[in-house]
């Protein structure tokens, strides 16, 4: 390969989208630099234990994606301080003093989980036994056990769907897509771990949209014995023995219901990141009201930003699950390829 004329692409964010796009771009013959703010690559995948629908360990998927990064210039613990454009080239200044020159930039900054402190009525950070789905995933991964704050095996657990999603009050109108299936996964895993524990999922609508998800739902009902209650949590209180008293309406029965659980799990949704990068005039990113990035055309040019040479991939443009992110990253790499070919 002729390295002297080799075009250079900088990928911002080494999550699933960033890693996959980098690998694809390298395969197309470009020099790729992959920038990551965190000390290691992987993004939100690092916070997962097992992945739906088949409970495959996240570490396996991560390992596979990382193994494709050979030959890619990966820079972790790096933040971009400044981006300038000179002619058709982007000049990026990184916080270690490095200056990178790029013919195209791919923004793959991903999402951040909803901050559950913002739903004060659910008591996260106030009550001992309120957790988020991220906390539960970490417990599965690191402790291999789910225990209450006082170290006991829970006898009843409630999963609350749509925390920070589909919620005007939280400022997030959209559905985060993956929380429903994550709740079904975690609820099933919990039942697998503690068959005697009662597990409830409180949902507004169950959105089992992808190929194997309905099967997971079915298994949760029949194999694992998870109970699904259609009703949204309005508020939670802590009892004297540190359990959580929750108030929902069982809308299918048509009556308000009080229930005391040992653990309450909040299924936090995805939120767009509003990083400094989003304000860079050089990148000229268009941030939607929902804080996700807008592509030029949501139908035909999903990976194109409004600025020439700046591309988008992954969950920075909206909630996605892993197969969608991989497809999106591949598509973005091809769009970059087409752009650079036309320019040559």
């Amino acid at each position, binding site marked *: 390969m002729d390295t002297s004329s080799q075009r250079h692409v900088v990928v911002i964010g080494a999550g699933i989208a960033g890693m996959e796009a980098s690998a694809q771009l390298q395969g197309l013959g470009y020099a790729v630099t992959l920038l990551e703010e965190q000390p290691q690559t992987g993004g939100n995948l690092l916070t997962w234990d097992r992945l739906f629908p088949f409970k495959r360990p996240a570490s396996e998927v991560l390992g596979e994606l990382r193994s494709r990064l050979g030959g890619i210039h990966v820079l972790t613990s790096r933040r971009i301080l400044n981006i300038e454009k000179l002619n058709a080239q982007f000049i990026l200044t990184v916080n270690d003093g490095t200056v990178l020159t790029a013919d195209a930039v791919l923004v793959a900054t991903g999402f951040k989980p909803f901050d559950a402190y913002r739903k004060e009525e659910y008591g996260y950070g106030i009550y001992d036994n309120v957790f988020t789905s991220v906390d539960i995933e970490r417990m599965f991964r690191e402790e291999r056990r789910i225990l209450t704050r006082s170290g006991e095996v829970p006898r009843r657990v409630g999963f609350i769907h749509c925390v920070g999603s589909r919620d005007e*009050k939280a400022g997030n109108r959209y559905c985060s897509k993956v929380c429903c299936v994550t709740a079904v996964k975690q609820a099933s895993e919990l039942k697998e771990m503690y068959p005697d524990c009662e597990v409830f999922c409180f949902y*507004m609508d169950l959105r089992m949209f992808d190929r194997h998800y309905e099967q997971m739902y079915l298994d949760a009902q029949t194999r694992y014995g998870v109970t699904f209650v*259609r*009703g949204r949590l*309005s*508020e939670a209180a802590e009892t004297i023995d540190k359990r959580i008293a929750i108030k*929902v*309406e069982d*809308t299918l029965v048509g009556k308000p219901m009080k229930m005391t659980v040992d653990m309450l799990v909040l299924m936090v949704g995805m939120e767009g990141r509003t990083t400094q990068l989003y304000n860079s005039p050089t990148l000229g990113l268009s941030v939607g009201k929902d804080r996700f990035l807008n592509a030029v055309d949501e139908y035909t040019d999903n990976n194109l930003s409004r600025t020439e040479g700046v591309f988008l991939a992954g969950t920075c443009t909206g909630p996605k699950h892993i197969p969608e992110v991989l497809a999106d990253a591949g598509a973005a790499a091809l769009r970059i390829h087409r752009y650079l070919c036309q320019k040559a």
Partner: protein
Amino acid sequence: MVNFGFTINKSTRIDYDQASKDVSRYVIAHEPSALLCIGCGCCTATCSAGQFTPFNLRRIQLQVHRGELARLEQETEKCMLCGKCQMVCPRGVNTRHLVMTIHKAMTLYNRGELKDL
């Protein structure tokens, strides 16, 4: 004798063809946020009046739209208008005014004064 609002001869299923849509139309015209409801039941779960009575805003507003109007005027008179439901509603429905509007519409309807808008 408690009046349950139906006689023994009538079917208990919703007869949508026969049901009056006037109240629903009135309510939507006077409190458009009624259209936002997805029936999550948050309002009913948090309801202050719901501690003492079977007051259920989610069901009442659905009944309005299905023309199931029996006893709705009395039902809405259980609300304390405390506003908790308004705070928890994920869709931002103006619930307090919704209750007041349903009550008003039902009063007019029961008096036979609810004409076309």
